[in-house]
């Protein structure tokens, strides 16, 4: 396992900045593939050539028959598979680090200019630099509290492409393994190749043990494939939601002023959100909302947003369309929305109690915010 530390170190960094599904995928990669390969599979395949016996005395026949039976050993094939499947994540990581660095550079320059303008006579050169550095950490596009990168724009695209390429590689290697060896190894291999004088019987060493590992590694590869597809589904669904919320961005500048006037003016009215409200929720704080939209979760979401609005949100950009839409009384309430109608005094409640309160859709602190 020590030899895998080069790749392991790089992937540790990726692990910190992945989504939940991404972390699960990485854990599967570390434990079920790298560790198993390094510790168990390699010793099983250790004597693959020395114990490959052919029923012949002809010198060289065993060599050529082994070469024909195993153009590339399973272990090496899996090593290459792991490397190629992890590479897209590394590319994404490189892009993320680059983006963060560029942003920090830009904000540091802005802060420096600001600091120079506000500078008084008492500041020394180094004090300025320190204050600039402090500002830099606050201003950067990096969430210092969680130490996470915020996925949006081109970074999100890179992430999606990396998962797509990863999926393609996984499929390619699974198909490649099937084409090369089928699924199971046979004990007997009949070989006819010069200099063997006639078709000879060759016997593979430890076929059953090898079959166990082959099936295991195949199952793990299929599991990784499913995890990649699940992550794609997550991200695709998120993007669709974001696109849906864009039509509601009519006049975001008026939304804050309406927030103040609305509670007094419209408290007596009943509010029902527009039809596809729940599908079009955009997250105001960039929190990772569960895409498995059942009724209870969507009700909980609506309740949470309502209570959060009462206390006031900082991030107006993501909220603009949301706030505007929820103050509009819409007659077309379909059953699939199933959002609760707000009672007269809901602004006074600190927190709504909901059926889904046990199953929290809040993101954990180490999740990548999308």
């Amino acid at each position, binding site marked *: 396992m020590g030899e895998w530390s080069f790749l392991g170190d790089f992937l540790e960094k990726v692990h910190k900045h992945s989504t939940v599904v991404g972390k699960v995928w990485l854990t599967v990669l570390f434990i079920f593939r790298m560790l198993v390969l390094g510790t168990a599979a390699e010793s099983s395949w250790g004597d693959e050539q020395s114990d490959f016996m052919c029923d012949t005395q002809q010198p060289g026949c065993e060599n050529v028959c082994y070469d024909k039976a195993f153009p590339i050993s399973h272990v090496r094939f899996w090593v*290459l598979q792991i490397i190629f499947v992890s590479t897209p994540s590394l590319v994404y990581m490189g892009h993320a680090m680059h983006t963060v660095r560029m942003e920090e550079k830009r904000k540091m320059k802005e802060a420096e200019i600001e600091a120079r303008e506000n500078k008084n006579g008492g500041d020394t050169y180094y004090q300025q630099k320190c204050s600039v550095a402090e500002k830099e950490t606050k201003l950067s596009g990096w969430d210092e509290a969680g130490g996470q990168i915020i996925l949006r724009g081109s970074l999100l695209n890179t992430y999606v492409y990396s998962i797509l390429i990863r999926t393609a590689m996984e499929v390619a290697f699974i198909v490649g393994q099937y084409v090369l060896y089928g699924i199971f190894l046979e004990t007997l291999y009949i070989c006819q190749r010069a200099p063997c004088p006639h078709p000879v019987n060759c016997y593979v060493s430890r076929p059953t043990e090898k079959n166990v590992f082959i099936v295991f590694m195949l199952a793990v590869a299929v599991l990784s494939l499913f995890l990649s597809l699940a992550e794609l589904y997550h991200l695709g669904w998120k993007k669709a939601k974001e696109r849906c919320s864009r039509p509601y961005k009519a006049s975001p500048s008026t939304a804050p002023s309406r927030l103040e006037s609305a509670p007094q003016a419209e408290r007596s009215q009943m509010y029902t959100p527009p039809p596809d409200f729940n599908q079009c929720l955009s997250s105001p704080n960039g929190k990772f909302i569960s895409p498995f939209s059942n009724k209870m979760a969507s009700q909980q979401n609506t309740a949470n947003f309502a209570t959060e609005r009462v206390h006031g949100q900082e991030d107006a950009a993501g909220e603009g369309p949301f706030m505007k839409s929820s103050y509009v009384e819409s007659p077309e309430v379909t059953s699939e929305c199933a959002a609760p109608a707000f009672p007269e005094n809901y602004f006074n409640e600190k927190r709504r109690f909901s059926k889904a309160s046990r199953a929290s859709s809040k993101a954990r602190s180490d999740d990548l915010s999308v």
Partner: protein
Amino acid sequence: MNWAGLYTVLSGVNRHSTAIGRIWLSVIFIFRIMVLVVAAESVWGDEKSAFTCNTQQPGCNSVCYDHFFPISHIRLWALQLILVTTPALLVAMHVAYQQHQEKKLLVLTGHADAKHMEEVKKHKMRIAGSLWWTYVCSVVFRLLFEAVFMYIFYMLYPGYQMMRLVKCEAYPCPNTVDCFISRPTEKTIFTVFMLVTSSVCIILNMAELVYLVVRACARRGQHHSNPSSGKGSFYGHKHSSEYKQNEINQLLTEQDGSLKDMLRRNSGLQEKGDRCSAC
């Protein structure tokens, strides 16, 4: 082979490299060193013991193996990787020297407290001035070593392919004997893989060279269009005259508060210099 030690040393250099340099280092460690250690070494593990010749003549086996494999692929690749990664140590040494100079300057100007010393250690060196020349030399050496080893490989093993059967006539073999190499297909696959990664590294090095030259020319162009900023902006930020001027200013302001207007005048100069040397 303690590749982990090499990794530790080179990770330090990583901080002061360009973006392409970092990519190159990652490619070296993941696609070459790791593949070499994890996969290739076990493929070539039994190359001598499984090298079989169609003869009973004692000694013929060994002589024929030696004739066809003067140096094994694995050892050649290990040598190549070591030689290709060591020029980066030149850059590391130069950076260490520059940091040492900065610390001396801090001590001289009386700012030798722990915070400033830490800052000197942590901040990224700009690749300008003499460091630029060192960096470019290291990239050129890398390119040279890669090219030389590719050529050596081609001379030793033409076509980069491993033959299944070789015919050997070396003494003491009594006649032309057939000798069979173990796992030729797998060895060919890995030879081609290492060849491709070597080419990728060559391309990355050339791109880095072009990038460095273009950046230097751009900086020189800015320097020509802003002559008042002085030579300092081209020959490294930290040792520029404006930096030294700032240091002197701080000393003066700490001693005499009435020199605030001098500071204000110098801050104008600093702004101009920063604009020109910003890259």
